C-alpha cells in the first residue's frame, strides 16, 4: 500500500466513522509525500513544530496550484480571505481587532460572563426533550445550542438561521478536499458563492448595527475602538463571515463527538455526573481524542523545510493531521484510551501558533456546560446506532445525526 492511496483512504467517506487506524498507519512515515505533491505530517512533535514555523504560510496565494485547481484559483473573485487564511502582518492586525470585543486584554470577561446565558440555553433545550424517549443529539441539541450562542454574541437575529444555515453548509463543504473522480472545483465555486451571499447578508446587519449599536460583537467591531486602527468595511464583513461559520460549525461536532464518546464510555459518563468539575479535563481529552477539526489542509512551505528526516520543498502544500498527532504514542501514553482525567494534555485539538482557535475559550465553555448537563439530566441514555451516520466532511468531522434513547429527563 503506498502512502498516496493512504491519504485518499482517510478522506474517503468509508473511513469517516473511524479514521484512527489509518492515522496510525500514516504515522509510520511522519512526513509523507503523497503522489499529488501534498506532504502529510502526522506525528505530534513534527506538527507542533510546524504550527510555530514562520516558513509555513496559511495564505492560499502562496500555493503552487495542483493540476485542476488553477482555473479555480484564478476565478477566485469573491470575498478576500479572512485572517484564517492570511499571514502576518495582515493576519495579526485583523485578529487583534477581532479580539478586542471578545477577549483579553480589552474584553477580559466576555466569555466567562456568558456562562449564565449558556446554562439557560442548555436547560431550555433539554427541557424540550422531557416528554420524549429518543432524540437526535445533533438536531435537537448540538446544532441549535452553538447557533444560539454565536447569534447572541455577534448580534445576528436567530430567526435568520434558516437562511445562513444553507450558506454555512456550502462554505464548509468547500473545505472538503474531496474524493477521486469528484468535482472539488464545483464545490469550491459553490462555497465562494455562498460566502458572497452570507457576506452580503452580514453587511446589511453591520450597517444596522452601525446606526443603532447594541452590546454585541458586530456593533463593537463596526464602531471601532476610538481612533486606534480599525477594520475596513470589507474586512469587517469577511471577519463576520469567518466568526459566524467557525462559531457554529465546529462546536456542533465537539458536543456531538463528546456525547458519542461518553455513551461509548459509561464510566466516564457516570464520573461526570458525580463530579461536574471533571468537565474541564474531560473536554480537553475530547479535543485530543475526537477533535472536531481533524486536519489543516491549507498550509504552504515558503522555503525548504527539514522536518522528520524529510525536506518539504518550497512551494509544496502541507497537511497537518492534528487528529493523528493527538494519538501519537511518542507524546501521549496509551493514546487510544479515552481518559477524562488525563494530565499534561497539550493536545492539538485547537491547532497552535498564531492561528490557534480564536473561539477556543468559548468552545470549551460551551462543551463543558452542554456535556455536564446532558450527563446529569438524561436518564439512562444509550446509543441507538453505533457508529452513527457521519457528515461527509473529513476536515470538520462529526456525526450527521446522533440518535439517543433515554428514560426521560430529571429536572
Amino acid at each position, binding site marked *: 500500500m503506498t502512502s498516496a492511496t493512504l491519504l485518499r483512504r482517510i478522506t474517503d467517506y468509508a473511513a469517516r466513522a473511524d479514521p484512527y487506524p489509518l492515522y496510525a498507519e500514516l504515522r509510520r512515515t511522519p512526513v509523507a509525500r503523497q503522489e499529488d505533491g501534498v506532504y502529510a505530517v502526522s506525528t505530534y512533535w513534527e506538527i507542533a*513544530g510546524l504550527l*510555530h*514555523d*514562520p*516558513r509555513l504560510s496559511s495564505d492560499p496565494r502562496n500555493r503552487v496550484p495542483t493540476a485542476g485547481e488553477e482555473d479555480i484559483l484564478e476565478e477566485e473573485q469573491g470575498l478576500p480571505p479572512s485572517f484564517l487564511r492570511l*499571514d502576518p502582518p495582515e493576519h495579526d492586525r485583523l485578529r487583534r481587532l477581532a479580539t478586542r470585543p471578545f477577549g483579553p486584554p480589552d474584553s477580559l470577561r466576555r466569555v466567562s460572563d456568558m456562562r449564565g446565558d449558556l446554562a439557560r440555553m442548555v436547560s431550555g433545550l433539554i427541557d424540550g426533550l422531557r416528554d420524549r424517549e429518543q432524540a437526535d443529539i445533533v438536531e435537537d441539541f448540538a446544532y441549535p445550542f452553538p447557533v444560539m450562542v454565536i447569534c447572541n454574541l455577534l448580534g445576528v437575529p436567530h430567526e435568520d438561521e434558516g437562511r445562513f444555515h444553507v450558506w454555512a453548509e456550502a462554505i464548509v463543504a468547500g473545505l472538503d478536499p474531496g474524493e477521486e473522480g469528484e468535482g472539488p472545483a464545483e464545490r469550491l465555486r459553490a462555497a465562494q458563492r455562498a460566502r458572497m451571499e452570507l457576506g452580503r447578508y452580514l453587511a446589511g446587519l453591520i450597517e444596522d448595527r452601525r446606526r443603532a449599536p447594541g452590546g454585541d460583537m458586530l456593533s463593537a467591531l463596526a464602531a471601532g475602538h476610538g481612533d486606534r486602527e480599525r477594520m475596513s468595511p470589507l474586512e469587517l464583513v469577511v471577519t463576520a463571515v469567518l466568526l459566524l461559520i467557525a462559531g457554529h460549525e465546529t462546536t456542533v461536532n465537539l458536543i456531538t463527538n463528546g456525547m458519542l464518546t461518553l455513551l461509548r464510555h459509561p464510566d466516564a459518563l457516570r464520573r461526570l455526573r458525580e463530579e461536574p468539575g471533571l468537565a474541564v479535563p474531560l473536554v480537553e481529552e475530547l479535543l485530543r481524542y475526537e477533535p472536531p477539526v481533524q486536519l489543516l489542509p491549507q498550509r504552504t512551505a515558503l522555503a*525548504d523545510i527539514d522536518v522528520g528526516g524529510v525536506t518539504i520543498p518550497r512551494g509544496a502544500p502541507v497537511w497537518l493531521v492534528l487528529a493523528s498527532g493527538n494519538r501519537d504514542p511518542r507524546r501521549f501514553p496509551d493514546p487510544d484510551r479515552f481518559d477524562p482525567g488525563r494530565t499534561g494534555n497539550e493536545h492539538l485539538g485547537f491547532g497552535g501558533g498564531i492561528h490557534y482557535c480564536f473561539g477556543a475559550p468559548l468552545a470549551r465553555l460551551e462543551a463543558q456546560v452542554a456535556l455536564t448537563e446532558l450527563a446529569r439530566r438524561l436518564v439512562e441514555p444509550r446509543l441507538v446506532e453505533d457508529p452513527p451516520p457521519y457528515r461527509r466532511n473529513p476536515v470538520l468531522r462529526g456525526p450527521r445525526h446522533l440518535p439517543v434513547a433515554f428514560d426521560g429527563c430529571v429536572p
Partner: protein
Amino acid sequence: MPAADGSAEEFRRRGHAVVVGASLAGLRAAETLREEGFAGTLTMIGDEPHEPYDRPPLSKQVLLGRTGAGDTLLPRRRALEARWLLGTAATGLDLAGRRVRLAGGEEVRYDRLLIATGTRARPWIKETEATLDGVLTLRTAGEAARLARRLDARPRRVLVIGAGFTGSEIASACRERGIDVTVAERGPAPLVGALGGVVGAVAAELHRAHGVDLRCGITVTALEGDQAGRLRCAHLSDGTVLEADVAVVALGAVRNTEWLAGSGLAAGPRGIACDAGCRAFDVHGIVTDDVFVAGDVARSPHPLFGYQFLSLEHWGNAVAQAEVAAHNMVSPGPERRPHLWLPAFWSAQFGVNIKSVGVPPMGRELAVVQGSLTERRFAAVYGHQGRVIAAVTFDHGRWLPFYGRLIESAAPFPPDFAQVDRAPGGPRPIPAEFPDPALPTHGPTVTLSGYAPSERRVTFVPARV
C-alpha cells in the same frame, strides 16, 4: 532513624528529605518527590510566613488592584504530607552531620537536602535612606501589599530606581493607574542588561509613549526625608532634585546564600554552583551527592551555552530545575537526568507581551526576523559565533518555540530563509549593544592553600557586600 546508606531505593522508601525554601521551586520539587514515589518524611522550611505563592502577579495584577497580594497562592499539584516550618529561616548547614540549623536553634536532620532559597530584592545601598517611610522594594507578597497600598493612596509621584523588568512593570502599573512616575536608569535604556541597547531603545519608546518620565544614564545619589522620616525627594546624578512620595528600589536581586557561609558548599553572592544534575558543588569543586539545588539560587552549567554556569531568575527554570532535582534525589545514578531547560522568560508591560528564549546577553549581534522595531511588534534573534543563541519577541510570542528550536539546533546566524512577515531584503544583523560586562560584580574569591597534594584545599572567601 533509618539508615541512610546512600541507596536511592532506601531513601525513596524511608529517607528524610528536607527542602529549604518554600516558594515555587521548593513546592514543585516536593510535589515531584511524592509524585515519584518518595514515601519518607518531608520537611519544608521557609522564612516567609506564607504558603508557597506565585510572584509574577505581584508586579502586575496586584499593583493594578485586580488581585490581592495574599491571593496568589500557587495551585497544588497533589497532597504533600509534609511537615511545614514556615516563618522559620534556615541559618546554617552542617554538611558532615547532615543537619540544617534553624533560626530558633532547632536542627533538622536530612538524608537528602534540596536548597531552593531563591533571592530577595537588592536593598537601597544607604541603610539610613532605605528606612525612610516611602522607600520600598518589591519581591515578596508583603512588599507587594505595601507598594499596592501606597499606590492606592494616590502618591503625587513615584520614583522607580532601575529599569529592569521589575522596575519597568512597576512603572507600567503606575501609568495604568494614572500615577505620575519617574524612572531612573543607570544604563542607556530600560532592559539593556537583559536584551541589549537595540531592544532597550524600543522599551524606552514604550515608557515614553505611556507617559513615563524616563531618565537614562542617571543614578540616584541620595534619598532625602523630611523631619518625620518620610521620603521627600531624590537627588539625581545630574544635579536634579526630584520630589517623590514613593521610591521603589528595583536594582535586581540578591541571592539568599548567606546562611551557607562557612558550610563548605560553593555558595556565594552569585548563587550555589551545582552540576547539570542539580547536585551542589562543595568549595573544592567536588560534587556532593546528598545536597541538591534548584531555582533562582542555583548556578548550573548548560551544554548549549559553552557549559557556562548560568544563574537564571526565571519562573520556568525554577519549575523545570525543581523537577529534575527531585527526580535525581530519588533516582539511582543511571536514571538521573540533566537539567537542559532552554532559558525562557516573559514580561507584561505597557500593554506589550515580551518573551525571550536562550541567553540574549551572549549575543553580539541582533537581527529582526519578523515584524518591525518601529511598530514595537517583532521577533528578533541574537547571534553568537555564527549561530542563533537567543530570541526576543514583542507581541509575537506564538513564534517563540520555532526560535527555541533554532537555538537548540545551533542554526546559523543570521537566519536565511523565506518566511512570513519577513523584512524586505531579509534580516540585517546589527550590533545588539549590550553594556560592557566589566561592570561592578559581586563575585566571590577563592584561594588555594597547602603544599602536599593531600593538603591542597580551596578556600572560599565570601565577597564583601
